[in-house]
């Protein structure tokens, strides 16, 4: 019992450290596609190529790379999309977009997928 909780703590600490370090590998769009599914993004957004992603709460994400603004106010760039995914309420306090606790690396992969032409 004590051992497993210690192990858990170690894992949590390790992942926290991992998310705090700058990215060392190239963004991976395919991994991004899996992450978009795992984080349930499709519950609110229609995302081409992501299984069961047909949500109708927020805007559809087909062709989002060409869109000029994110969230109605943020100029669209990879960096800003990462910011928006990671901390939507710090950018637009009243937004319905949830903070899903996505790490920098994970967001980078998601954005790589969303920026790939569909």
């Amino acid at each position, binding site marked *: 019992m004590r051992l497993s909780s210690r192990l858990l703590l170690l894992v949590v600490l390790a992942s926290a450290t991992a998310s705090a370090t700058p990215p060392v590998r190239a963004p991976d769009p395919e991994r991004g596609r899996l992450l978009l599914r795992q984080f349930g993004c499709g519950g609110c957004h229609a995302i081409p190529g992501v299984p069961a992603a047909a949500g*109708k709460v927020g805007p559809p994400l087909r062709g989002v790379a*060409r*869109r000029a603004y994110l969230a*109605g*106010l*943020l100029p669209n*760039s990879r960096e800003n999309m990462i910011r928006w995914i990671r901390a939507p309420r710090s950018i637009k306090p*009243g*937004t319905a977009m949830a903070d899903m606790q996505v790490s920098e690396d994970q967001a980078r992969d998601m954005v790589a997928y969303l920026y790939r032409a569909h």
Partner: protein
Amino acid sequence: MRTLAILASLVLAALLAGGLVLYAGWYDISATDPHLRPTFALLDFGMRRSVRQRGADIAAPALEGPGIAQRGAQLYRRHCEQCHGGPGVAPEPFALGMTPTPANLVHTAREWQPADLYWVIREGIKMTGMPAWRHRMSDDEMWATVAFLKAMTRMEPRQYQEAVGRPSPLPPGAGAGGEGLRSLPLPLGGGAAGEGPDPKRGRRAIHQYACLTCHEIPGLTGANAPVGPPLGGIARREMIAGTLRNTPQNMVRWLRSPQAVNPGSAMPDLGLGARDAADIAAFLATLD
């Protein structure tokens, strides 16, 4: 010889038919309805090719130097914003009534080469209302305007207001309001008594508020530029602007006062009257 005669008579018949359409006044030249889709596609394609062809030989100077974009910001506010608007700033009412509707330049600047933007500023575009500036601006000024257009694509609406030297009406950090703001009443009245919202009228009115310069709307002819989200399926979307439940009343409120709902939004207040807003909302509710 025979084939030649047939070809010649076919050409003559086509010319006569075209002449008849023009002479009889059948082509609708009004600015209240858009061009027919084939006409729009043909003119738009021809315009792009013409600009690309002429911009190809122009070498753009360095546009990143200190102060260049700031200088362009003043020129933009003075000469461009009236017709094109800016992030969170609507074009003047007269420009909303123009056909073709002046383009959203954040979108244009994201997709066009600096030399092409410069060429259009310098030479203008026939039959669009875009004037030629070469006799009214120096070369440096026109390039400074291009530099600002490129810089504008990286600005939040609030930063745009600062760049053009307009004091922001909102304290920084004043994001979207909570429930209090959402329940603010907005007068709905206005329309003739006994008349419900008319989606057909809304479909025509939508061309008078530059909606297509920022949104793709299925079935409508115009820029359909992806500045904001596409409106296909908006009838079944649960939220508007990420903050409001999608109800007819909320859609009207958002269309009429986006800046009150989401301060700092790139969507400007476009001066929609109660009836136009209700009709446009009714039209949007048909897009599922």
